[in-house]
């Protein structure tokens, strides 16, 4: 896993080096690490896409693909669609600010399509701008009473060729999202991919909406949920493997989706889930793994610490949101009171000034309300999302331990069987001996598989953690800067309001 230096090369070298890189592609995916000279080529092509895609090409491109070809059931028709596409399109105007500009590789791209190995599909994605923009909007209530639900419009705008269209939307309900997540989790979590967790269920919130209360709190609940669903989908498609998963594609594209009943809390599947969770928790306590790789131990510790700190920060930010909302309410009340005071004041200039004060305070209360919303949607939800994500990350680490356990178990079993076979050698039971030998062969295969699985999951986790950390850094930086900018705006508005008031106050004679 060599990290070669990547400095953005000048334009012309791009094409040149990509030509070089092309020679790589005929190699089988399982081939060894390409020569260092070629690595820059891969890197460059992705480099121009910014840091996000670097992680794809980061360490072992081949391994990534190897893993992918196991899991992701990309049917060939899809791939054909992929391969027959023209050159990657220009940047669409909807490119979100964090995504990247199309590479300068331009027409050299075409040649890449003629290769069938999976890596160039990755390459192409890297070559594309990461151009998927999903928005969840227009929540509308469907049905009535306790069977009612909120349907959300999921709109996708993309130029990626893995999708059938450029701009499309579907209607989904909350349980659909949960269903998607449970499918992805069952497919990928135990192999080590960090699957973003879905937003949480809220029985109370939903009931209020179902019952039809059209008040502030239920509106806020719907808005909160809508925003959370949007972030969830964006995180999911940002993951390069998940993006290509047919379930995800189906979710985004199909107009009708089979109802995901297993996500209901009280269903049999739900109860089974709870039982499994409890069993897992017990297992976690009993498995003692001798960690040979310090990296994992260090990372695990890092995530533990992060978890604690983020939770604490999240609690403080939630408290801030609460107090700011309170401040907004109290300011509004004060504004009304000041207006009344102004009315009863019989000195005309003072009366006018007091009314102005009341107006200023009223505007300020709206400002506080907006700021509280920014506090919440930008800062607090960011932290909440990451607290949940880290739980997923910890889950992935736990799966690794389970894999290790399985491997160890089969090793122990193999040993026992070998001993049993050795014993059988002395007795005169040829068929039992044969049976024992067969079992041993089977177990040996299992042990090997177990070891491979363990290696695999370890590798994947390393990559995933790298990608996750990059995402995290980027997320935190962009969102917190956005939040600070909202604070800047608030202060600017405040200044405007008070500047307007000052001459009024001075005018009191």
């Amino acid at each position, binding site marked *: 896993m060599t990290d070669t230096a990547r400095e953005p090369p000048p334009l012309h070298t791009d094409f040149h080096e990509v030509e070089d890189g092309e020679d790589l592609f005929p190699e089988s995916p399982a081939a060894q690490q390409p020569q260092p000279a070629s690595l820059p080529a891969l890197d460059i092509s992705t480099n121009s896409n910014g840091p996000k895609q670097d992680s794809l090409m980061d360490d072992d491109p081949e391994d990534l693909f190897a893993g992918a070809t196991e899991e992701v059931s990309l049917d060939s028709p899809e791939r054909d669609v992929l391969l027959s596409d023209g050159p990657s399109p220009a940047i669409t105007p909807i490119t979100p600010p964090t995504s990247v500009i199309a590479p300068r590789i331009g027409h050299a791209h075409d040649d890449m399509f003629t290769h069938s190995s999976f890596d160039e599909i990755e390459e192409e994605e890297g070559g594309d701008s990461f151009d998927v923009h999903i928005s969840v909007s227009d929540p509308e209530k469907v049905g009535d009473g306790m069977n009612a639900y909120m349907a959300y419009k999921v709109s996708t705008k993309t130029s990626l060729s893995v999708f059938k269209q450029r701009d499309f939307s579907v209607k989904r309900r909350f349980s659909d999202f949960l269903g998607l997540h449970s499918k992805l989790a069952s497919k990928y979590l135990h192999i080590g991919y960090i699957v973003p967790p879905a937003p949480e269920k809220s029985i109370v919130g939903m009931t209020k909406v179902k019952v039809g209360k059209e008040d502030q709190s239920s509106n806020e609940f719907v808005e909160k949920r809508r925003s959370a669903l949007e972030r969830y989908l964006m995180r999911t498609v940002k993951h390069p493997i998940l993006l290509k998963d047919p379930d995800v594609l189906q979710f985004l594209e199909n107009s009708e989706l089979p109802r995901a009943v297993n996500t209901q809390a009280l269903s049999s599947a739900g109860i089974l889930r709870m039982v499994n969770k409890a069993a897992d928790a017990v297992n976690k306590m009993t498995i003692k793994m001798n960690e040979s790789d310090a990296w994992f131990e260090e990372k695990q510790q890092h995530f533990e610490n992060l978890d604690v700190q983020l939770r604490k*920060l999240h609690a403080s930010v939630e408290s*801030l949101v609460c107090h700011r909302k309170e401040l907004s309410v109290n300011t509004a009340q004060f504004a009304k*009171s000041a207006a*009344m005071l102004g009315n009863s004041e019989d000195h005309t200039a003072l009366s006018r000034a007091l009314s102005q004060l009341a107006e200023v305070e009223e505007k300020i209360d709206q400002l506080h309300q907006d700021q509280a919303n920014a506090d919440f949607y930008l800062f607090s939800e960011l932290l909440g999302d990451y607290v949940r994500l880290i739980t997923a990350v910890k889950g992935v680490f736990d799966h690794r331990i389970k894999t290790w356990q399985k491997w160890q178990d089969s090793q122990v079993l193999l040993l026992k069987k070998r001993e049993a076979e050795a014993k059988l050698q002395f007795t005169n039971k040829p068929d039992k001996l044969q049976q024992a030998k067969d079992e041993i062969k089977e177990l040996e295969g299992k042990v090997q598989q177990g070891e491979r699985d363990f290696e695999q999951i370890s590798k994947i986790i390393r990559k995933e953690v790298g990608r996750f950390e990059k995402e995290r*850094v980027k997320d935190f930086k962009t969102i917190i800067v956005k939040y600070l900018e909202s604070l800047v705006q608030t202060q600017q508005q*405040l200044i405007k309001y008070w500047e307007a008031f000052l001459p009024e106050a001075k005018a*009191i004679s």
Partner: protein
Amino acid sequence: MFLIISLRERTRSGSASATKRDQHHVIFFLIIISRDLVTLSTSCHQPFAAMMQEGLDDGPDFLSEEDRGPRAMNVDLEMDATLQVDISDALSERDKVKFTVHTKSTLPNFKQNEFSVVRQHEEFIWLHDSFIENEDYAGYIIPPAPPRPDFDASREKLQKLGEGEGSMTKEEFTKMKQELEAEYLAIFKKTVAMHEVFLCRVAAHPVLRKDLNFHVFLEYNQDLSVRGKNKKEKLEDFFKNVVKSADGVLVAGVKDVDDFFEHEKTFLLEYHNRVKDASAKCDRMIRSHKNAADDMNRIASSLYTLGTQDSMDLCKFFLKVSELFDKTRKVEARVAADEDLKLADLLKYYLRESQAAKDLLYRRSRALVDYENANKGLDKARAKNRDVLQAETSQQLCCHKFEKISESAKQELIDFKTRRVAAFRKNLVELAELELKHAKGNLQLLQSCVGVLNSNT
């Protein structure tokens, strides 16, 4: 003149745990700058003297405030003798505050020209009550008594902080301690200011300043041995208040012939209620503001911890944001404190003053009713031709009293209005200026931080 006072605040503690608690006692160093010596113009324009002009500074350090020597503004057109009163110094002990009242006077009835005495809150109340009970002062707005110094909330918080010391990081603890100290200081300054305002108003009033009790208060350097009211007296007071308010209702029904007073009556009634409402809402608003600032404090600490623990990419980022939150929080706390000073205190003060004005009107109405009753009595006596002289004298007395009150009340109420308008103007202007100053400061902090963060990524 500058006086450095140290107040030692011991948390309430039993003797058993005294040694342990001693570790938690906080020492405040207070530098109180001598106040502007208040003028003697009949309208005291500055109920809140300049001591708190700048709002809270960082920590209890006031040397930065401008030198306030005695302002030579005692342009007194009416009298030739001057009387300047101020509170030069204050000491906070466990459960009481001792004020040093400093007087400078050229009035003949004082033994010296300049002297100081130490007074406690109860003695201020005694003085105020003596004014209220004095019949001669019925026609004046008696300056409202200063509220009792109330450090309880602050003390509780300090105690809780001491107990919770183990559970927070060192930085958090020091930060919260500083916050509490600042809060304590603010309350302390406020109570000193309010006591001073009371004395200044009395000293400024042409009639009240001559009161004998006032002179005793200013000069007598032994303990006035004014005890707080015992239970019986408090009960008496309570009944008196009940009777008074019932009477007030009766008396308020009496229509006044004089338009001026009729107008004032309706105005004051409504105004008083509105001010009460505004004052309560203002307090709530400011409390929310303080809570939000506290939250920012905690956010800053959490970000700091994150910054020290996290990966290289983020740690600088977090540290910078943590620093920003810390600074922003200070500004927000200052905003809340300034709002408290300029707005909340103003409203509270005028709540009390408007009550005093209402009391004046009540007394006048009472006198009017008495006068009318005396008139009726006189008519009756004349009709029966019995005790006429007695009725006549009593009627004359009532008439005289009523007219005296009416006359002075009119002037007092006009002065009240002038004072009120001036005070509101001053405070609203200062409030707006301070809000602007803080918002601009905050904006600059935020913009520079965003700039740094954007250039780093």
